[in-house]
């Protein structure tokens, strides 16, 4: 029941409310509404309209929540979302078509196909750093696959959360797509319900809670988590371009608060000074002499994270390794791009995912030693990056480094390539999405076999005789010669 709390004038969303929401969506789903191609198309078109007509409001909400520069909001949240919608609209017919599957002589005559069907009622829980993208991109996938959806945006980006709730209610079909705002109690209430799929973007600690809750109902999950995404920088490269691309992927993405931001750099002792100088030069070119004055950097999301990052910076043996930056403004929750050289490998900043504007550089004697360092650093990251012109190094990197996705000679951009599945492995998550993978993530691929009545292999049935055994062996092997020989043997026996 929704209880009116007069003091706050807000309804309490508890397990009962969650149950009602799920029931309403399940009733809608059962009518078959969301399965229709037309419904999916109208919803996606409505979302496009929603993004077109509300760009300034979205930019403003992101500025409120994260001081995100208009540039980043416009491109990494709105444009990417629009692209997702457009791609889904363009390809959906093709994605929805059954896929023919080959059948062998063993089941002749028969035909087979794989039919995509929606899973049903799905839950999307998103994160605070790209509140629009990480909420609505999965929703695009869920819609294109024909599901009913509950979206739970992050409460740590409150202006975005309430704008999303308002826009979704205004533009999309509320009988099938709902937004539930809130924090831990509301999320827990939602997680108690039975969903047909849950897609969660966030951290490993909460992911474990989500998966444990899903286990009670045997709900499959996609977990998009994070990790320490390393960047290996070799010598003999175009240093300027490499530096700029690292900066774009680190501080250009929500000031380092992104799951695929370069977390730390590994380079050779010989190259380190050049690299640091290049960073200093480009950072100043991008953000000016005083980065805290630059309008092109997001702030730290809240004081909890500010304190967390400060702790990483201030750790003894780490603070002395700062070679660039270090400026902070606690009132404005700002931390300038800060680079560290050779912090101890067991320091906090090298143990947890930084998720902020701090960039440690670790040096090794030979660049090949980077791989050992990455493998010993614990969990598999979401992304790993390498800057090199050396073919052998590229091959070793690609074959041995285990991460969700790898990029050679750039950072972060693989996010925008729809033909690549985006997801983690090990601690960085399970499952993937983007492009058709989003459609697949929210679909059940039903196997269908069509058989006729001709060709009933009598040898399937009892009475079981040795002759049948021989024949069966031949039939299962699928070899036509074997089958003929066996049949001849049968007739001649």
């Amino acid at each position, binding site marked *: 029941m929704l209880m009116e709390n007069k003091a706050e004038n807000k309804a309490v969303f508890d397990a009962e409310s969650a149950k009602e929401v799920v029931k309403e969506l399940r009733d809608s789903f059962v009518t078959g509404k969301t399965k229709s191609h037309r419904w999916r198309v109208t919803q996606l078109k409505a979302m496009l309209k929603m993004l077109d007509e509300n760009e300034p409001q979205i930019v403003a909400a992101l500025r409120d929540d994260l001081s995100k520069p208009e540039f980043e909001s416009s491109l990494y949240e709105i444009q990417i979302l629009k*692209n997702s919608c457009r791609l889904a609209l363009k390809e959906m017919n093709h994605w929805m078509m059954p896929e023919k599957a080959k059948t062998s002589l063993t089941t002749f005559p028969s035909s087979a196909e794989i039919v995509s069907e929606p899973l049903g009622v799905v839950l999307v829980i998103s994160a605070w750093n790209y509140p629009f993208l990480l909420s609505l991109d999965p929703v695009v996938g869920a819609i294109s696959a024909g599901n009913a959806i509950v979206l739970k945006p992050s409460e740590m980006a409150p202006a975005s959360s309430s704008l999303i709730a308002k826009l979704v209610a205004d533009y999309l079909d509320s009988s099938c797509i709902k937004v539930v705002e809130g924090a831990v109690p509301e999320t827990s209430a939602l997680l108690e319900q039975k969903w047909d799929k849950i897609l969660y973007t966030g951290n490993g600690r909460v992911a474990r809670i989500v998966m444990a809750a899903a286990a009670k109902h045997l709900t499959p999950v996609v977990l998009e988590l994070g990790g320490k995404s390393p960047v290996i920088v070799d010598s003999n490269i175009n240093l300027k371009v490499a530096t700029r691309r690292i900066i774009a992927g680190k501080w250009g993405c929500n000031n380092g608060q992104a799951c695929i931001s370069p977390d730390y750099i590994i380079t050779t002792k010989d190259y380190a000074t050049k690299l640091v100088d290049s960073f200093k030069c480009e950072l100043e070119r991008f953000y000016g002499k005083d980065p805290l004055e630059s309008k092109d950097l997001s702030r730290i999301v809240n004081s909890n994270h500010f304190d967390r990052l400060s702790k990483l910076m201030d750790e003894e043996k780490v603070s002395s390794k700062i070679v660039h930056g270090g400026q902070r403004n606690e009132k404005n929750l700002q931390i300038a791009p800060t680079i560290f050289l050779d912090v101890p490998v067991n320091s906090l900043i090298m143990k947890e995912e930084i998720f902020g504007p701090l960039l440690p550089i670790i040096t090794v004697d030979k660049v090949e030693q980077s791989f050992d360092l990455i493998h010993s650093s614990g969990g598999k990251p979401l992304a790993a990056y390498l800057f090199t012109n050396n073919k052998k190094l590229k091959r070793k990197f690609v074959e041995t480094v285990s991460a969700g996705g790898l990029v050679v000679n750039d950072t972060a951009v693989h996010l925008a390539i729809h033909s690549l599945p985006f997801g983690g492995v090990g601690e960085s998550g399970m499952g993937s999405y983007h492009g058709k993978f989003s459609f697949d993530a929210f679909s059940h691929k039903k196997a269908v076999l069509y058989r006729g*009545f001709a060709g009933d292999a009598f040898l399937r049935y009892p009475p079981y005789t040795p002759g049948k055994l021989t024949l069966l062996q031949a039939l*299962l092997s699928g070899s036509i010669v074997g089958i003929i020989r066996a049949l001849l043997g049968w007739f001649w026996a």
Partner: protein
Amino acid sequence: MEKSIAELRETFKTGGTKSISWRKSQLKALLQLINQNEDSIFKALDQDLGKSPVESYRDEVGVLKKSVTYTLSCLEKWVAPKKAEVPLLFFPAKAEVMPQPLGVVLIFSSWNFPFTLALDPLIGAISAGNTVLLKPSDLAPACMSFLVETIPKYLDNKAVKVLAGGADIGERLLQLKWDKIFFTGSPRVGRLVMAAAAKHLTPVTLELGGKSPAIVDTLSTTPSKAKVTAKRIVGGKWGPCTGQACIAIDYVLVEEKLASTLIELLKKTIKRFYGENIKSLKNISRIVNKHQFQRLVNLLKDPDVADSIVYGGSVDEEKLVIEPTILLDPPLDSEIMSEEIFGPLLPIITLKNVEESIDFINSKSNPLVIYAFTEDETFKKRILSETSSGTVTFNDSMVQFLCDSLPFGGVGQSGFGRYHGKYSFDTFSHEKSILHRGFYPEIEPRYPPWTDFKLLFLKLAYQFDYFGLILLLLGFKRS
């Protein structure tokens, strides 16, 4: 135990299992194991489940041989990275998806198809380059012992291990960290497995079960089709391990006016296949143990259920045999109609109109398979679009299991994840995305300080509006 797993992890780290030659040699060795030990395998299956050699070959040995051979022939293709399309904007760039082994995987198998359900996932795990711990079910003890003794003789001990034991061993294994867990069994245990996996964020594949119905709509076609329908239903119920199979037909839905025809056909077929009565029962497995036997007998204890028996019903506790039993319209709220039967009892539920099957099936949780015997194309389409199940098979039973190109798995309460053929390889792989870029050309507008021009440029770029970009660069578009 911990030592074994540490060894598996060490072995994986050395990278030995990643080589295609290692994988092929292991698969070939597995094929040899099966070829050279057929008789022992038949013996173990007879001991644990009373399976005849033909059933054992059809459902276990033959299936496995086919699976290994198919995997060997496709392995190089599967391991090769797949090219992915890159938009012109990123030129020059190369994108691909490369499958990689997950690492150290745990496979739990079930007792009803002790070889297939243990070794078929093993084939997938090895083909994908992982190290494996296999935990077969102790409810099929002869088969479990065989696996424990024989696998080390053929496969690489440092990379593939088999652990004997019961539920307690299973629980201890679940406390450890794995890179993947593959589980075949009941939904109840599936929940426990997934909850344990959640602690380590281990991905899981759960192959569970459910009440797989058979809709029968072909009895009024031709007599021969009706006969074949009956044969396939009998073959799909009592053929696989006397109904103790996740894809066995659980119950039948038929129009009430055709019920008696169906029952007569079934009776005739049962007698022909399995014998006249329980004393002369042949060509059929037995119940695996006393516990399952008692469970099945209890399903018949309800007097309303017992009253609905129209054929069979006799049991032999000593031999753990229950004869093929048909029930006509037992109460819908009885246990036999609410839980997965997993045994030789076949309820027939009658409907006024066969189309009502759809609502009936939807009132229960998603089964692993829906079988539909019908030639009505419209009805087929309705079944496909209005019901949800792991698989749908039209006009036959069981054979979908033999299709390597069809994913085998459930949905909802019947599980998630899939395998068979390439899907086995995929289920034990991580598909790693890789993007290669060059240092040139550079897209300057990526970098701050940001201006309206740069924003417009990138907006056009993101929309792949190359023409617009050209206009912008030539000065024909204003920011």
